[in-house]
């Protein structure tokens, strides 16, 4: 009799313990995502007031003059992303193709390892390196330098995602193509990469969203510019840079502009992320 009750007690305690842990871990999950909600809430609340047509079409105004916009920074970020793509996409995609299609197990292990380590290099380091590589040499901050820094950050990101999605392409497509007497490289370029293209594009977009929000590598490469950039060999404005400059300034007007810039940047980054997720979930990789 006593034995049985004790066992029952023990059992219910164990169940209670399990429920308790479930509750605790659930709370952890809530705490983890709380900052997302808070940041989003504040960015929208503080930013929405300053977002208007001027914001997208006008240059920044000097301190004390209200109004003005960040047109040059928005365009600058797009230009920098275009420059970054020129480096990051071909190197990343083709490198990923090598890992997925050609490399031996050992070489791949090493290359993958290095790419993953490279992904862990702080982005500010890339800024310093490109400063030494480009800015010092040409004696000027420039859009090229900023684009190069962002592009180099993209390389390992795109390389890894490309490799992963290419490996998901079933071997039967490669076999079918090669059995038609199609050359290996054409099989890879026209059949395999094309089959994986949705995943590759997803990887590219996520990489762009990631570097589009980077500030540290641009501080002393692109440098920022209060005006339009007319020559890529000159400094260029970027949205994250402008937000940073305004955020640490002592002026309320600029703070408002910083929040508005943040709203635009966050919207852009989130849109890419959400679209990519919807896009890839609805039309999953063909298997």
């Amino acid at each position, binding site marked *: 009799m006593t034995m049985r009750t004790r066992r029952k007690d023990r059992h219910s305690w164990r169940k209670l313990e399990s429920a308790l842990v479930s509750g605790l871990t659930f709370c952890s999950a809530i705490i983890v995502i709380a900052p997302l909600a808070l940041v989003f809430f504040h960015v929208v609340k503080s930013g929405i007031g300053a977002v208007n047509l001027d914001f997208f079409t006008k240059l920044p105004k000097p301190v004390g003059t209200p109004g003005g916009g960040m047109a040059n920074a928005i365009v600058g970020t797009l230009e920098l992303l275009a420059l970054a793509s020129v480096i990051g996409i071909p190197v990343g995609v083709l490198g990923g193709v090598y890992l997925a299609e050609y490399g031996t197990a050992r070489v791949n292990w090493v290359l993958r390892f290095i790419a993953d380590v490279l992904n862990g290099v702080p982005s500010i380091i890339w800024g310093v390196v490109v400063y030494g590589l480009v800015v010092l040499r040409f004696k000027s901050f420039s859009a090229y330098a900023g684009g190069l820094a962002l592009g180099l950050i993209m390389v390992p990101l795109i390389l890894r995602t490309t490799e992963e999605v290419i490996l998901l392409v*079933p071997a*039967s*497509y*490669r*076999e*079918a*193509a*090669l*059995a*038609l*007497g*199609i*050359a290996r490289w*054409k*099989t890879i370029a*026209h*059949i395999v990469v*094309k*089959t994986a*293209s949705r995943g590759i594009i997803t990887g590219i977009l996520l990489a762009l969203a990631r570097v589009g929000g980077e500030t540290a590598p641009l501080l002393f490469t692109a440098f920022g510019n209060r005006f339009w950039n007319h020559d890529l060999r000159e400094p260029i404005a970027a949205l994250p840079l402008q937000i940073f400059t305004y955020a640490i300034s002592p002026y309320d007007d600029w703070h408002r502009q910083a929040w508005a810039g943040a709203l635009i940047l966050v919207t852009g980054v989130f849109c890419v992320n959400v679209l990519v997720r919807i896009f890839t979930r609805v039309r999953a990789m*063909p298997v």
Partner: protein
Amino acid sequence: MLTQVMPQPQVVEDRDRAAIPPSDAEAESLPMAVQAKNVSMWYGAKRAVDNVTMDIPAKAVTAIIGPSGCGKSTFIRALNRMHELVPHTRVEGTVLLNGENLYSSDVDPAIVRRRVGMVFQKSNPFPTMSIGENVIVGLRLNGVRDRKFLNEHLEKSLRMAALWDEVKDDLHKSGTSLSGGQQQRLCIARALAVEPEVILMDEPCSALDPIATAKIEELIQDLKKHYTIVIVTHNMQQAGRVSDFTAFLYMGRLIEFGATTKIFTNPGQKQTEDYITGRFG
């Protein structure tokens, strides 16, 4: 390149004859399309095919049967050098296609595969391409650009694969939108488009329902007028229905090879008889 350098009277003659259905007498005197001589294959250290010598007659269906793991799928991959895609595989012996050694150093495997086509167990039309693109992709990626020629060939290949009437209005639709049996016939059309001399089929019906299977088998009967067909199957009824010749492989060795009627009614080897009567496998 090779095909142009080497004269091929054999092939031309075959084609010519193909226009007229061959009589029985002619069938018996058919030349050998593929001759495997002492072919052995290894996966790493494991020997998958052991010293197989087999002459595969032209313009006929040859079935390769045997229990799973007997090396039949591996063996036909030696006939178009597809095994080379798998690392650590090795082949010894020679394979002659109309007298030419497929393994001689000056032969490009891509050329071999254009002449010896292949249809796989699971239909695998390219998912990013339409039905039409799937058919002509072999020609297009092998350098054929002439749009008119491609269109003609598209229709011809689909007709040969008995698929034209079913898809002629949907050529722009995705190849994966078709039913399983149609997809497999699309894959056959794709293989036919590059005009191979030999078609290897690796259990082409194993994923299909009986009706779709019947259609493919009927198609095989049509195709043998023009092509040499080698079909791997684990289904003995199918081998009996479609093939003219049957080879029985067991543990990588060729146990028996002969006319299908003989193999099925009067096998020369005890092992063949045991397998055919269902005592193992």
